[in-house]
Every structure is written in structure tokens, then in C-alpha cells.
């Protein structure tokens, strides 16, 4: 187990290195932050030069990158060009809200997809299955920002049931979580359905029935438990795109998370904040994938942590 975790950790570090290269250099293709900072007036070349020097932007790019890496190793993400605040602190500050939203999305997705997928599979070919599949299709087809706006219009503006923006209590989490989790729930419901169908035709299900177990025990304890295995991997992989989705949802719901911070930083060409935010999101993704891999070996006894099934 330890060996497996170490190997996965090394792998994760490589992935993060690759991400850091991509972020670092691609941001610098977007324009010079100093000219944006002085957008208001007409600064003297000397002033620009000194700002540059201060921010370390006068060094050659590879040198800047190495400095960035060196600091990253100690979780020092530099300071915001704008506010001078340490980026690490800024990101950590906002990360809680973003993670809360992401898990809210996953929770909504599971809450909807598990029953829909299971029922669809068990009642295959009936009206229940038909509506389940229609639901999946609808869930997948609506872009999440549009869904977010619709939810606000209906539940906040018209019905006034739920708050539309900000975060000040659990009720604020509901609409953005639904908006974020809907697409995932559509895809997940399909996956659960096909995975359930595959498992329902397995011999061990007949064995479970031949034992005289109640049908729901056969479905949940025996079939669903097996169908869950591919589902967990899938959720782990999808968590990344869900985190990506928070960037948009945070805009729509004025959610005080990392995503909104990054968008603001992009507008201001605040390199350290963009880099720091994205790198931290990437780290979370990598960490979640690692956790999924580990939990996978717990859920499926055939997978030995250490690789390969026997």
C-alpha cells in the first residue's frame, strides 16, 4: 500500500510540474501586466522599468519560472501584483468555498443519478426507464451557466425561496450546487444504469436471489455495490471538470471562491494570483484522483493496491 501511494505521489508531482509549465508560459502570452496596471495614465519608461524590476519581471522567462518553482516548493505563491497580499493566503482563504461548492455539485449529482440510474436499470424498458433516460439527456444538454440563470430566475426572483448570490449559510449552497451538478448527474445516471444492467445479468445476482434475499437487498447490497466500482472512478475523473465548472458557476452566483478570484485576476493580469489559483486547483484535482485510486482498492477487493488484479 505504501509503495503504491509513493508511486502515485511521484506521478502526481510530474503532472503538477507539467501543469505549472503550461500555466506559467501561457499566461505570459496574454500581455504585459505592467501596461495594464498603468492603463489609466501615461507612465514614464523609468517608472515602468522600476515596477518591472520590483516584480521580478525583468529577468529572462526561464529564470522567472525557476524562481516560481522554487517558491512553489515551499508553498510560497508570491504576492499579488495588485494588492501585495500573499497569494497562498488568498487562495487558501477562497478554496474552502470552492470545495464546498464542488462537493455540493457531486452530492447533487449522486443524489439524483443513483436512484434514477438504479430504477432505470431495474425497470428496464418500462416508462420509468424511459423517463430516466429522458432526464439524463436533458441533464446533459443544458449548459450549466444557463441552468444557473434559470434557477435564479425561478427560485430566487419569482418564488423567492432561495438566495441567488453570495455565501452566508447552507441555503446559499443549494442553487449553485444544482447548477453545477446537473450535467454530471445526467452522465452519471447513464453510467449507473449501464453498470447496473451489466451487473444484473451476472451469475452472482441469480445466486443472491436463489438465497431467498429480499429483492432490494439483491439490488442494493449485491448489484449496486458492484456497479459502484466504475462509478467511483468516473466521479474521481469528473471531479476535475467539476472544479473547472465552478469557475463559471461562481461568476453566475457571485460565489466567493477561487474561480471568481481567478477571473478577476485574469482581468487585471495579476500573474501570481492566476498561477497560484490554477496550481492550487490542479493540486486538489490530483489529490482527489489519488484518494479515488486508494478508495478504489478498498471498494474492490480484487484490486491489490500495488497494481494489477490477481
Amino acid at each position, binding site marked *: 500500500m505504501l509503495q503504491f501511494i509513493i508511486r502515485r505521489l511521484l506521478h502526481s508531482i510530474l503532472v503538477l510540474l507539467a501543469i505549472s509549465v503550461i500555466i506559467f508560459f501561457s499566461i505570459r502570452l496574454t500581455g504585459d501586466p505592467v501596461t495594464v496596471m498603468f492603463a489609466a495614465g501615461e507612465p514614464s519608461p523609468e517608472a515602468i522599468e522600476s515596477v518591472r524590476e520590483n516584480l521580478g519581471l525583468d529577468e529572462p522567462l526561464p529564470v522567472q519560472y525557476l524562481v516560481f518553482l522554487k517558491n512553489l516548493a515551499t508553498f510560497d505563491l508570491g504576492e499579488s501584483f495588485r494588492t501585495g497580499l500573499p497569494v497562498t493566503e488568498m487562495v487558501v482563504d477562497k478554496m474552502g468555498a470552492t470545495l464546498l461548492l464542488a462537493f455540493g455539485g457531486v452530492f447533487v449529482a449522486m443524489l439524483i443519478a443513483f436512484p434514477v440510474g438504479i430504477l432505470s436499470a431495474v425497470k428496464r424498458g418500462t416508462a420509468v426507464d424511459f423517463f430516466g433516460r429522458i432526464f439524463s439527456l436533458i441533464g446533459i444538454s443544458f449548459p450549466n451557466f444557463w441552468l444557473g440563470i434559470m434557477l435564479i430566475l425561478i427560485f430566487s426572483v419569482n418564488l423567492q425561496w432561495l438566495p441567488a448570490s453570495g455565501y452566508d449559510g447552507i441555503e446559499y449552497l443549494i442553487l449553485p450546487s444544482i447548477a453545477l451538478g446537473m450535467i454530471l448527474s445526467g452522465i452519471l445516471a447513464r453510467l449507473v444504469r449501464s453498470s447496473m444492467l451489466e451487473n444484473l445479468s*451476472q*451469475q*452472482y445476482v*441469480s*445466486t*443472491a*436471489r*436463489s*438465497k*431467498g*434475499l*429480499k*429483492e432490494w437487498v439483491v439490488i442494493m447490497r*449485491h448489484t449496486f*455495490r*458492484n456497479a459502484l*466500482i466504475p462509478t467511483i472512478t468516473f466521479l474521481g475523473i469528473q471531479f476535475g471538470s467539476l472544479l473547472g465548472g465552478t469557475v463559471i458557476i461562481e461568476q453566475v452566483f457571485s460565489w466567493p471562491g477561487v474561480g471568481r478570484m481567478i477571473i478577476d485576476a485574469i482581468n487585471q493580469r495579476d500573474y501570481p494570483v492566476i498561477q497560484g489559483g490554477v496550481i492550487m486547483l490542479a493540486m486538489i484535482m490530483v489529490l482527489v484522483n489519488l484518494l479515488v485510486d486508494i478508495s478504489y482498492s478498498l*471498494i*474492490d*477487493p*480484487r484490486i491489490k493496491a500495488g497494481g494489477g*488484479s*490477481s
Partner: protein
Amino acid sequence: MSKVLDVKDLEVSVKIDNERRNIVNKVSFSVNEGETLGIVGESGCGKSMTSLSIMDLLPQALSVTGGSLTLNGEELTKLSKNAYRKKRGKEMAMIFQEPMTSLNPVYTIGFQIVELVRNHTKKSKKEAYDRALHMLKLVGIPRADQVLHEYPHQLSGGMRQRVMIAMALSCNPGLLIADEPTTALDVTIQAQILRLMQSLQDEMNMSIVMITHDLGVVAETCDRVIVMYAGEVVEEATVEELFESPKHPYTKGLVASVPNMDKDEEYLSSISGTVPTPEQMPTGCRFAPRCKHAFEACHQTPPLFDVNEQSKSRCWLYHEEASNVQEGRKEVGAGNHS
């Protein structure tokens, strides 16, 4: 001897495109206490569907559409789903052909047996685990106390089939249905499993329905046999009768296709042609198109004739009143040696 299981005129049909087709047609047989009844026949003749209908485990598209099933004097077909369910695992149990996939891969052996025991008894967890351990030892599993905590993938096919047997018998069912329990196993393991089943049968005084297409298994384990062809019973006989003087031409073909060391045969005979599918079922005798003795009468559906005390045959050659019966018998006998 009392009848444990009595099957009368069982009909199983499948619904395809709003059309019903019989897969099992008026099948009748009974199993006495402590007896092993064999069901033999080629692949696709309806052996599995017959046994699954007894357990009420038919696949969704299939259903019992006629006949009666009586277990220990109680009519099963009229039971509610729930009452039927409570019989499974307790009064009747089943083991399947594929030991590799019959157990749930994500639960330990112990858990799976305990689950069954606790489903039907009021035993505590501890008592149920003791029962599971006892059963594993009974079926000859070495290191039983460790195996209790192992997962199916850690065991070989033969061991898994032993586990299946241990589980099936853990609540002392009076009837065990074994659907080709040894087909997927090595020959040496096959013999071990069959011997195990026989010794457990003696010990627990249970009845066994042994489904197989292997006449070797029949010879070794069964008391009586029914031979199925295309969803129908074509012959019923004691195991001695079956091998010494098979009646139905299909049975003769089956018996003749077993390699025999005593006789000096130059080639193995086998039955030409294949089992008809439900879509293209011949009218009259279903075996007639493959039968070398087919004659006029075979256009009519033959009933199951009582040939003697122990055997029945669904073949016009055994029509008592027909004067050509004796000739027919000779002819069949002669055909067997040619």
C-alpha cells in the same frame, strides 16, 4: 417414499414481439425423498429453464404459463412472490454451472454464507459464522477458518463450487437443484465434487435434481433420469434401464454416443442434425426429423407411453396397440448396432 418435488405439465414460455413460444412443454416429473433425479438433454433443450422455474428465478422475458409445482405437498405456483422467496435457500437451494462467477466478488465467503443463514434463521452473527465455518469444513475446504475471511477471487474454481455447495446446504434444504455443477471443472475435480454431493446427500437426506448433459455424471450419481428433447420429456427411466435398454431413439443415440470400453466399436455414433429452435419447431414428434426410425405416425404428437413399471417413452414405437410395435422395437434394436 414421499415425493419432495412434483412437477406436473410445466409450461414455460417466452414472449417475443407479442408472440408466446413454449420453451418447456408439459414437463412432468417427481423427485422422491433422498433421491437423485437426473435431467439430461442436449444444449438448449430447456433443462435450465425447467430448473429455474422451480426456483422462480426465470429471466424476465420468460414465465411459467401452465402446470403445477408442488414442494413437500405445497403448491408453489400459487404462492406470493414473497412467500416463494422465503422458500429459496431454506427449503430448496440451487447451485450453478459457473463457480467462477456464482459468488459476489466484493464480499467475503463468510459474509455470503452468513447472509443466507441469517436470512432464514434467527441466529446471531456469531452463531451464523459458526454455522458457515461448520459448512466449509463439511464440504472439505482446507483452512476453513481463513477462507471464511477470504474473497472469491482468492479461491480456485473447485473450491468456489465447494463454497457454493456449503452455502446452498447451510439451511438444510430438502431439495438441491444442481445445474451442471461440474461442467466448468477439471475432470479430477468433477469427480471430487460429485462424490462430495453424494456423501452430503446421504448425511442430510436431501433430494437432488442433477442437470447435466454428461451421461457419465448421470451414471455416477442418479437414481432416475428424465431425458429432455426440445422442451419435452421424451423418456423417463431408472438409471439402470436407461443404460441397459434405452427406449426412445433419441436416448439410444445419446447412450450410443458415450464411448464404451466393453463394446468393440470402431467409431462413436452421434445423432445427426441439431435441436430445433422454438421458431421452427416441427409438428408431431419433435425428434422425427433427426430420427432414422421415423414413420407415418410421427406426424402426430406422441404421448408419453408407459413402456414398463420403470420407464416411459414419448415414441410411437411404443404404442401398445400398434401391431408393428414389436417390429419397430427390433428395428430400433437393429439400428443400434449398424
